[in-house]
């Protein structure tokens, strides 16, 4: 997949009102593959933490017998982090404001994950 295709996938997510940024992260090593973030967000650090959290959650869910994670969502009092793992092992990540349409962001993340493959 080309860098332009990655950009297009992220663009779909960042168009949603209330999304502060989006990025593609390699789940295996927590490295940034592509990013489209607002200034002030430390991409590499966010990628590392999102990758680590995703791995822990994935293993816990597998152990609990509830299957692989399709979508996860860290809610804070002032915003949220939303993640959809793509089939290729890439995480599609969105950072949002508190008052965002979570359902819509989820749909765009799923769509972007489908495009990323």
């Amino acid at each position: 997949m080309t860098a332009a295709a990655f950009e297009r996938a992220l663009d779909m997510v960042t168009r949603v009102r209330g999304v502060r940024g989006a990025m593609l992260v390699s789940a295996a090593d927590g490295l940034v593959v592509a990013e489209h973030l607002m200034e002030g967000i430390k991409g590499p650090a966010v990628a590392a933490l999102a990758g680590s959290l995703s791995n822990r959650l994935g293993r816990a869910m597998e152990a609990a017998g509830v299957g692989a994670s399709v979508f996860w969502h860290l809610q804070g009092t002032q915003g949220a982090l939303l993640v959809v793992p793509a089939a290729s092992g890439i995480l599609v990540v969105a950072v949002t404001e508190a008052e965002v349409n979570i359902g819509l962001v989820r749909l765009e993340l799923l769509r972007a994950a489908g495009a990323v493959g």
Partner: protein
Amino acid sequence: MAEDIKSLSSQLAQDPLSLVFLRLAELLRQKGQLDAAHRVALSGLERHPHLADAHDLYARILADKNDFERAFDEWDMAVRIAPHHLGALKGLAFLYFKVGDIDQAVAHLEAAHKHAPDDASITQALALVRGGQPAAAAGGLGIGREEKRAAPAAAAPMEEARVFAGLEGAQEGLLLLDAAGLVLGGALRNPAGQDVTEAVAAYLAGVSQEATRTAKLLGLGTWTGLATEGGMGHVHLTSPTAESLLLVVRDRAVPMGRLAIVAQRAAHAARRWLERQA
């Protein structure tokens, strides 16, 4: 009103994609024809699944039919589509009040009040909810038909002893851990019936700290929940205290919004349980 219903039915028949179903279903609801209102609203919702007003209307009909669980899902969906939807915020406040979660009821009413400061029904409901007058508060919110408004019972407190008693509590799908991933209470079984408590706890060690660091780094404030949608079930993590982590697992049939409520109640029970153990 009968003529209005006839006229609106005719308009809807001529243009099934129009939004006239909203007025028609509401009229039917007000008239007490709940089954007909249900059919019209559901049919409209199928054609307009992203319309917050349609979810709100459907939720009102479900609430009138005392199907509060599904009403919650519909109001939850309406708020996801339109975070400031007044009807949905008031509806959720009403349902939170019914289960005794006054804080959440007030929070939803305050959110509604913020966006409609001149709405007297919200002001009245806020005062009544804070004063603990459930039936009157429901009336203030304009939810539920009068004759069906029984005073909701206070929140049925979770039976902490049962929930956190160990394997016998495993059917609750709850697990309480300390920051290091050591099991404080509850237990989990996988769908095959095997005890998976320790394995799940081991993977979750440190999750609370990572969630805190991530939230801080991103300026998300204090993290309040970590919800995960799985292929066969949903998981919700929350932190009842600074040093503990609570995991709630439910089947996929339980919507994420409802699971968040279950988790909030469980966290409340966990806090009380931890206080008693100290």
